């Protein structure tokens, strides 16, 4: 969390994360370039750069896309999510080197503008086999640029978390474009069972993890209580919630989190104002509900971030009867104080 914007709000974990990103990228480049120079020494430096960085970007994109669902399935993967934006920017830089060199090599120094040339030098748009695959890569790079350039809390706040999230969900469109770019380009000219199998496996892993996550979450979302007394909905028994933790429920089609802490119960919206993180999977630390994604904090009794922070989320009224917790489904205005239920 921060009250003003800095390029990077560094801390020890971010530095460790970035060191591993750099190490991973270097290992990849050394492997690809080393193996190519040993087994295929007649390569040219331009081709080596284009291929090394292009394939590196694809590999990193796969790593990025599995982190989200892995964290949803097991919170022990949380450290991978914390600084994923740096991984995203690194992947974009690799893609930019690939795209930049390709545009320079294949489309510049001609008699027309390189970008115009990219769209017009192969006009077989109606053919699948002859389709100008470069155009797909170009649009993927534009999406990755938009994402990388807005990959900062300044843009998150100014664009609004909702729009920012939608913008960054375009990574799936970029992934689709990248896969088509590779299959209609490199793999069409140079078909390799190994490469095709590897990319197919990558797709299966990414799709499989996302489907599994979505099935689990949709099951939670469909769980509705049938025990409603005077507008109060039964959610669970008190002892079902661990100390300083919460359980997530759906009331009025919204996800809410009921926290138990200091012999008290409070209910707040489950959606963090930062990036929509699941607050119900968070923990009460120093009296504040702490988001598991990036550590944003809220006071459980009023949904307000502790001063000097200004984020606010909706709160809910609770009551208990015979060890049973009931919630009133009507959300209070964001930041509204609600007395915790003493247990």
């Amino acid at each position, binding site marked *: *969390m921060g009250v003003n914007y800095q390029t990077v709000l560094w801390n020890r*974990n*971010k530095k460790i994360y970035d060191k*591993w990103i750099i190490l*991973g990228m270097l*290992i*990849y*480049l050394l*492997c*690809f370039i080393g*193996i*190519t120079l040993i*087994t*295929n020494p*007649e*390569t*040219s430096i*331009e*081709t080596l750069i284009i*291929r090394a960085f292009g*394939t590196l970007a*694809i*590999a990193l994109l796969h*790593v990025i896309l599995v982190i989200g669902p892995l964290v949803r399935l*097991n*919170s*022990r*993967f949380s*450290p*991978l999510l*914390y600084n994923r934006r740096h991984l995203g920017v690194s992947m974009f830089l690799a893609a930019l080197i690939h795209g930049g060199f390709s545009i320079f*090599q*294949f*489309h510049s*120094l*001609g*008699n027309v503008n390189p970008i115009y*040339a990219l769209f017009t*030098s*192969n*006009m077989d748009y109606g053919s699948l*086999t002859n389709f100008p*695959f*470069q155009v797909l890569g170009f649009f993927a790079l534009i999406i990755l640029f938009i994402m990388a350039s807005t990959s900062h809390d300044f843009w998150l706040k100014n664009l609004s978390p909702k729009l920012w999230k939608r913008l960054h969900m375009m990574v799936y469109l970029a992934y689709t474009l990248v896969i088509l770019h590779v299959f209609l*380009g490199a793999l069409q*000219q*140079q078909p*390799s069972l*190994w*490469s095709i199998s*590897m990319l197919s496996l990558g797709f299966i892993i990414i799709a499989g993890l996302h489907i599994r996550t979505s099935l*689990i979450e949709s099951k939670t979302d469909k769980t509705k209580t049938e025990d409603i007394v005077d507008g109060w909905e039964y959610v669970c028994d008190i002892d079902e919630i661990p*100390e300083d*933790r919460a359980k997530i429920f759906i009331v009025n089609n919204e996800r809410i989190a009921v926290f138990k802490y200091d012999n008290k119960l409070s209910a707040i919206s489950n959606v963090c104002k930062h990036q929509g993180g699941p607050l119900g*999977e968070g923990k009460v*630390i120093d009296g504040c509900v*702490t988001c*598991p994604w*990036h*550590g944003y904090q809220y006071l459980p009794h009023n949904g307000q971030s502790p001063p000097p922070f200004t984020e606010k989320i909706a709160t809910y009224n609770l009551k208990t009867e015979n060890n049973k917790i009931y919630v009133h489904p009507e959300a209070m205005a964001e930041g509204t104080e609600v007395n915790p239920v003493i247990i």
Partner: protein
Amino acid sequence: MKNEEDDFYVGYLDNTSTKTKKTTRLFVVFSLLGLIAIASIFALTQNTFKNSTFELTTSTKITGVYHEMPYPMLKVKTAENTYKNILLLGFGKSSANPFLEKIRSKTPKLSGSILSIEGNLIYYNGKTLLQITNDEKISLVEKTNPNRLPKVEQVANNMEFKGEVIDPKCYFGVMKPGKGKIHRSCAALCIAGGIPPVLATNDENNISEYYLITDKKGNPIHKDILPYIGKPSLINGKVVRVEDWYQLQIDVNSIQDLNQPSKIY
């Protein structure tokens, strides 16, 4: 969902649980091994690059008989009664013509004259090309003499070839690979920029032959052939030989796209 108390991770705090650390380490190790595997598979499944050469940083001065039949070339003596015709090209995706304008304005009948040109050599499989990057590096050695021009002999009135139209600059050394779908856009720009189109063929013994393509009257051809570049095609036409280069005189409309993946080189 696993949410054991000691497993809760906050990025800006230094109290990561042992289990979370272990899971993260496992992921990092797995990812690094994955990156090595991916890099190895991508690197090892690349097609073999050919031993073509582009002397980008080395300049070579060549003296020979200049001719345009129809593309600018320099006829160079390599041994007694043996000549090599070096195809002249401009910088980037451009023909040699813009770089020859200056000397043409001083020497109206340039064909047949002896020129000395300094540029970057490109060579592969018996063919040599020269990239000119500066018109100041072209000088007239001897004025024109038509007797020096290469002889043109007819080989066949109508022959059919299966091959791929390439741009010779990239194919013979500037790019690797300089053919096929990935290179098609670049080749189209090169040929649109005035670089002569060349038909590259491969026989069953994997022996390649190259044909400079012209129109039926032997004039340069560029824009009309763009839709057929980088695609295996069936092409027929009249074959003539200009010493060590074949020329194929064609009707562009008769080219048939074979809808096959590129297989040359």
